[in-house]
């Protein structure tokens, strides 16, 4: 009896696994590490509770609709944690056999969690950290990045400024390490595209001048003084990654100039008013599924899930290694509502993509700008290009 049943079972198993549209249940997880942080300058920038997870909701929905024609289902777990509890949270996910992990965390936590995931051969998507070194000297072979790096966003701003012939810059940097790292990206971008930083100043974070209790009164007196006696400049570039002064700059300068970077015209992966290239449909789907407008973090998570969805749909795999191999292969391409396909850089796992320049209401422009050429893809004029990479984990 046993002997007669087994071959039948084996045959059935074979049919299920070798058929083109074999059933696959795709399980992924989004881990968001929440930090103690001061309030943003603008109430509009308050973090929604479902930040990032909302992108996963739409990602599962979009993938699931496609999957319904192929017998694929998608289920993504949402986990919020703290830096202290993040390791345990990841362990719990890995021990459940989930090996596709999207992480929204700061640099140090991201790297530690990625290394832990590597022990279980899991693949990690970075949807939150823009630090350049995690794509370069600190890159990891099991880490792909859907969030643009500071190098990409700084280059996006630099190209627009140079296209406008605003080549003399007043760089205002914050004093926190993250602000300094961002300022370095702008200094590098200036050299790369032929702009001059004629003034380079640091605005100290003294913990004051926040929006409540008439903070603006103080700012209105501080900033003109801080920005006076500057050499001639066409534009002010704000490097305020920690969001404590940038937004005040626009109308409080000594010399009236446009502001770009962390305030004024901001480089961003997606915003809720972006409509070109069919994005209207993305916005309406997102708003219907989540009840609010999209944030860049949501879009970065959605992108990661769509990458997974493409691998499942076209390469018939939901294994970490299979998804990674497909994402880095020549066959991979993804439509991302930015007018051209997005693909991964094979040398460091960064998703190459156009960067929107956003004034708070509309897409003012999109980089790469016209005329910035590249032998392979104009998108590789943004961020770290192959000849300059220090990443060896993808070799």
């Amino acid at each position, binding site marked *: 009896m046993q002997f007669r049943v087994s071959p039948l079972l084996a045959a059935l198993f074979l049919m299920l696994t070798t058929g083109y549209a074999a059933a696959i249940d795709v399980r992924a997880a989004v881990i968001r590490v929440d930090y103690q942080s001061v309030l943003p300058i603008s109430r509009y920038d308050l973090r929604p509770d479902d930040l990032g997870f909302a992108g996963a909701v739409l990602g599962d929905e*979009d993938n699931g*609709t*496609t999957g*319904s*024609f*192929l017998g694929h289902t998608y289920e993504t777990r949402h986990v919020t944690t703290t830096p202290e509890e993040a390791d345990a949270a990841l362990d719990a996910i890995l021990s459940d056999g989930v090996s596709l992990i999207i992480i929204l965390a700061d640099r140090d936590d991201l790297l530690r969690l990625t290394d832990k995931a590597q022990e279980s051969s899991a693949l990690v998507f970075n949807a939150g950290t823009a630090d350049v070194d995690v794509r370069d000297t600190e890159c990891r072979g099991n880490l792909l990045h859907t969030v643009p790096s500071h190098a990409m966003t700084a280059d996006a701003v630099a190209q627009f400024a140079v296209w406008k012939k605003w080549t003399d810059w007043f760089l205002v940097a914050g004093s926190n390490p993250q602000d300094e790292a961002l300022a370095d990206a702008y200094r590098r971008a200036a050299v790369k595209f032929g702009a001059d930083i004629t003034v380079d100043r640091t605005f100290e974070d003294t913990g004051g001048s926040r929006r409540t209790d008439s903070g603006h009164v103080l700012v209105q007196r501080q900033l003109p003084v801080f920005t006076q006696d500057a050499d001639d400049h066409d534009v002010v570039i704000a490097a305020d990654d920690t969001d404590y002064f940038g937004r005040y700059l626009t109308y409080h300068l000594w010399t009236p100039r446009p502001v770009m970077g962390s305030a004024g015209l901001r480089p961003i992966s997606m915003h809720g008013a972006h409509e070109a290239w*069919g994005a209207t*449909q993305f916005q*309406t*789907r997102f708003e219907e599924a989540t009840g609010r407008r999209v944030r860049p973090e949501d879009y970065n998570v959605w992108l990661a899930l769509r990458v997974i969805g493409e691998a499942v*749909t*076209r390469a018939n795999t939901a294994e970490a290694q299979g998804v990674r191999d497909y994402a880095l292969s020549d066959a991979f*391409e*993804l*439509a991302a509502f930015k*007018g*051209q*396909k997005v693909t991964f850089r094979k040398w460091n796992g960064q998703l190459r993509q156009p960067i929107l320049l956003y004034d708070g209401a509309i897409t003012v422009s999109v980089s790469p700008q016209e005329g910035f050429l590249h032998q392979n*893809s*104009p998108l590789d004029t943004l961020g770290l290009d192959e000849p300059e990479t220090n990443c060896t984990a993808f070799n």
Partner: protein
Amino acid sequence: MKSLFIAASITALLASPALAGKAFISNERGNTITVVNTETWEVENEFFAGNRPRGITVSPDGSKIYVCASDDNLVRVFDANTYEELPSLPSGPDPELFIIEPSGKRLYIANEDDNLVTVTDTETRTVLAEVPVGVEPEGMGMSPDAKWVVNTSETTNMAHFISTEDYKIYHNVLVDQRPRYAQYTADGSRLFVTSEIGGTVSVMDIAEDGAPTVVGKISFEVPGVQPEWLQPVGAKVTSDGKRLFVALGPANRVAVVDAQSLDVLDYILVGQRVWQLDFTPDEKYLLTTNGNSNDITVIDVAKEEAVRSVQVGEQPWGVVTID
């Protein structure tokens, strides 16, 4: 006597447009339809067509113009001679493109926001069926025997083959990113599906029973144009099945393809952001809508050359012609 003569010539003038062929162009941003005389290439009229008019087609008898008024969530209907608005048709939310069956009875509409194809009865003005399809349905093609409707879904990246008998999907074919348009050959043996972001046209041979087999993929290359901007959108094939014309969006060109060997023969420079195409009924001319230059380009089909352009409304999207 003299006044009678003038009256007679005015009548003749007024009557002449009815004899000449006409092209109707939907202007997405202008919210209008522009009417162009296809003999004189003069603009004859421009009238309000609803909010965000995109897909446009004509009843088989040439008497009614149907247009997807995307932001009104309905299909607006106009008399093709008087341009008078007739009662609208229900379309489901955000209709973008549609196709009418040869009998003129049923209209198959892609609802871009709702992952549905809506089937509407043009006589009773009721919805007959809603067919769930992939994410962002867009392109709509119909087999010449009217047995199959092909819908393309832009984010799912599939061509869905829907039977017009029971409204069930029988085949799903994966194509490249953002499929935009599906076009059968007149004998029904071949189907072309354009992929805007993938930059390709998927070619399928169609069996007797309607089953598709992918047999090839057409790619494009224009010296001096970034490959990213070669984005296939609208497509039309000549009735003898020999030539395929493909609108290449921001590349501002229409590709001329040998529909049998699938070789790209030429690129015709047209207006900016070329979107949809339609032949004049005699197939002498191919008209292209150029969304960013607000005009249409007239291509001489036999010569495979652009012969003129005609300024129309704001952001022309779709075009349909009648005798």
